[in-house]
């Protein structure tokens, strides 16, 4: 029985504007075990992205508990969250979010710079990541010069270069055609097989089948959970 990497209970997130109050997460409960691959599904506006932002320590909840590796972090301030985030979490976005002014190599290098890794080691690790994603030959190109699939491979390389324990993927195949999409899913599965925990938000039933478990959300709550296969 693996340990829980993530355990959230009664998690609340409410967005307020002057006149409207939107409940994005409504006393949500969920657990993710170490090494697990979880897909989160649900219609638009059900709170998937909010959940992912909170899990990724990009945003803080209004209430409830958030245990990360057994430690309560719901009350963390931005600096603490940033510190934890850059050491343990990698992100893959639907729209790749590469910086246009930086080359492929420099984009992948970015997280290492901010965690203070030495230049020589950075080079080694970036090259290893690029190799693994089979995009090494494009190392000096700029994002605009790459296809969507190639861009997402760069984004995945960037997400894993820091060897994070958790990868959060927000519709990673949303902007890709099916063959490129399959390639990216294969990459994620490989990473998961190597021990990385993955939480992926998706609209695609096809992609969701790569996961161990699917959580379906509606109106800020978990409605069903289905186990597809056992975690090894």
């Amino acid at each position, binding site marked *: 029985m693996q340990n829980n990497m993530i355990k959230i209970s009664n998690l609340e997130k409410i967005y307020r504007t002057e006149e409207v109050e939107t409940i994005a997460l409504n006393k949500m409960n969920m657990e993710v075990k170490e090494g697990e691959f979880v897909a989160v599904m649900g219609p638009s506006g059900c709170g998937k*992205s909010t959940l992912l*932002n909170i899990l*990724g320590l*990009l*945003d803080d909840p209004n209430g409830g508990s958030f245990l990360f590796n057994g430690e309560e972090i719901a009350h963390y301030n931005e*600096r603490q969250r*940033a510190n934890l*985030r*850059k050491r343990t979490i990698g*992100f893959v976005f639907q729209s790749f*979010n*590469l*910086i*246009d*002014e*930086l080359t492929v190599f*420099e984009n992948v*290098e*970015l*997280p290492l*710079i*901010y*965690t203070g890794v030495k230049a020589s080691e950075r080079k080694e690790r970036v090259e290893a990541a690029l190799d693994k994603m089979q995009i090494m030959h494009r190392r000096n190109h700029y994002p605009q010069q790459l296809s969507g699939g190639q861009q997402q491979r760069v984004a995945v390389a*960037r997400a894993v270069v820091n060897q994070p324990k958790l990868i959060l993927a927000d519709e990673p195949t949303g902007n890709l055609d099916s063959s490129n999409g399959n390639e990216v899913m294969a990459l994620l599965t490989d990473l998961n097989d190597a021990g990385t925990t993955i939480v992926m938000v998706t609209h695609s039933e096809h992609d969701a089948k790569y996961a161990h478990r699917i959580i379906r959300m509606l109106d800020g709550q978990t409605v069903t959970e289905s186990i597809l296969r056992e975690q090894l």
Partner: protein
Amino acid sequence: MFKNYLKTAFRRLSRSRMYTIVNIIGLTVGITSCILIGLFIKNELSYDRFNKNADRIVRVNMSYGNSISTSNAAVTGTKVGPQFQLTFPQVESYVRLYPISGIVKYQDKMFNEKKILYADSTFFQIFSFHLLRGNPATALSTPNDIVITPEIAKKYFGDADPVGKVLHIGTEPGSQNDYTVTGVVADAPAASQIKFDFIASFNSLRKIVDNPQWFTANYYTYLLLHNPSQIAPLQKGITVYMKEVNKNELGMTGSDFLTYHLEPLTRVHLYSKVGEGMEPSGSITTVYILGIIAILILLIACINYTNLATAQSAGRGMEVGIRKVFGANRRQLFSQFIGESFLLTIISFVTAILLAVLLLPAFNHLTDRTMSASAIASPAFIVGLILLCFFITFISGGYPAMMLTHSGLTKILRSGFHVTSSGCGLRKTLIIFQFAVSVFLIISTLIILQQLNYINHRNIGYDKDYVIELPVDYRMRSEYGAFKRAIGNYPGVTAVTGAYTGPVNIQWGDAISAQTKSGNISFNVNAIPVDLGFISTMKMQLIAGSIFTPGDLMKMDTSNNNANFQYTYILNETAVRKLGWTPEEAIEKIINKGAPGIIKGVVKDFNFTSLHQPIGPLVIFLDPSFVNEMLVRVKGSDVPATLRFLQETWRTWAPYRPFEYHFLDEDYAHLYISEQRTGKVFSIFSILAIVLACLGLLALAAYTTVQRTREIGIRKVMGASASNIAVLVSKDFIKLVIIGIVIASPVAWWAMYKWLNNFAYRIQIQWWMFVVAGVLAIFIALITVSFQAVRAAIANPVESLRSE
């Protein structure tokens, strides 16, 4: 990490070309202005400070008059220096200076030299001028010693050794005219109030030295004190001492007085209120005004950066977001954005320094200075530039950097980066500021130019056009009458006269007394000795009595030791009024100005000093022996031919002197040289300000239009016409410009009111000046913005919607 920032910054700048160009142009112009004006200010503030004794040297100014009027002058009699050194222990030594121009001859070389200076032998001990050859202690100690600059040595002696050579200088009649060169002195620094080509020993002026006078004030006296703290006690001592002198030595009665004021050497250039110093003074006001203008221009450029950077930050949200997601903290992001602004600033700085060096000659011409570009490399200036560099970096880049790094992460990720409404408010404020400054400068320029135009075209009471001035020196006086007749007979000449100076700037100070209904009155006046025909040649208007006639010359009877000597006077209206008479009453009345004489005529008031001063009392008296200038009124039809004729005639009558002439209206223009300069400076900088402000507006309009592409598309789909869209886009900007105008107008009114108050004769500030400036600003802004607005308006709406 730093490399990464620099890389991103470089790539970003090369990709956003308009942004980069607008910023670099703006900052370069701003920094160039700052460097040039900085050089000017440094030059002005360092004036005369090259003298090692600068803080111990004072200039002695004379003040004399009575309870009715007081006059001040930067010159004194010859007695002040030696007498003060004898009387006051605080005075270590003194030097008297007497600048003249004269004809200098060596063998067959002959030139009219303008910068000959007589100076006491202490000159090189008191001032720190650098003697290249000769002994500073003795170079000026014996009569007829002369020290010259290397340039003059070259001019007269070529490559030969100048020391020991003899120069002939035609100055005063009867004085020994051969001067032996005893040394070579380096040119005076540009920032020196004392400048020279020749320095001759003061004791060459034997008659003057042997007979020291309190009055006959033609000499500049500088004292060297033992230490700077003695200025105030010495001043007190002088005031007390001069009271004694007035009573016991000068026999003054009533409220008449003569005293002296000490002015520290280093304050003379910028602060002296006493006119006619060794060279035209600068003014601390000019230093302030230029300093403020430099800062304003720089702020406008910085604002362009701030505005463009915040407007552009819309496109940078993702980058900030990604960097934050992957672990960048605020400090790191802030350094990154400040780094960008630093990079732009550095690029602009390098360009600006090059540009400043290129423009320095033109700027020297504009400011009438001789500053050298090497001053940019002085340590103080470099420190200043580095500080300025950081200042600009943080002023312009600080806000955008803060704004970008302080926005919440999820907000950026969720909805992209939106320029916050508060940032928008700041941007609006900054645009208002830019246009307020521009409009302020435009209004000021308009008013200054109007006043200059008024000066040029005001009826000053005589006709200054088409009058040629020729110098008359002592050797010509014997032939003056014949020379005058020869010129007067030429058909291109309508009238000839002579006078001590032209009527443009009559500086001769004098006093008159007269017996009137209310007793004996005396007061200070300006006076000018003239030749026959002065009033008519100058086309002055006589309002009572008659002009001078040859018969009046007969009254100047010098026989019998001047016992029956009489002057004949023509007074101006102000003088007559001060005496309590009407012009008609004044005729045939007797006044005394050294010698008694009758008032023969009254001339309508004319401006005989600059329009800064109200017209004071003036006495015109007939005495051709004082003539220094021949005034020739010529026909406007063929001036070159007349000049050729004058030159030929000159060669016949004065072969020992090169032919040199100038026009009276040039003298007049010269009076307002500082105002002309102010006018030019304001014109240039207001154009710069408005161009920079518009450049910023252009770029900002471009960005806003891009941001509103979707809105514009939707409006067009809903049926908005191209003109609707153009108005929509322009409206917001024009509103800001109008607010700028509203703010600038009263400030400009106040500043210009103050400036105009310096003139006794001035234009009234009119409402239309503000309207013109306002309309001009709106018009220029409208053209700038509509360029973008029209482009947005005529774009295909499908395109603009698709691009979202």
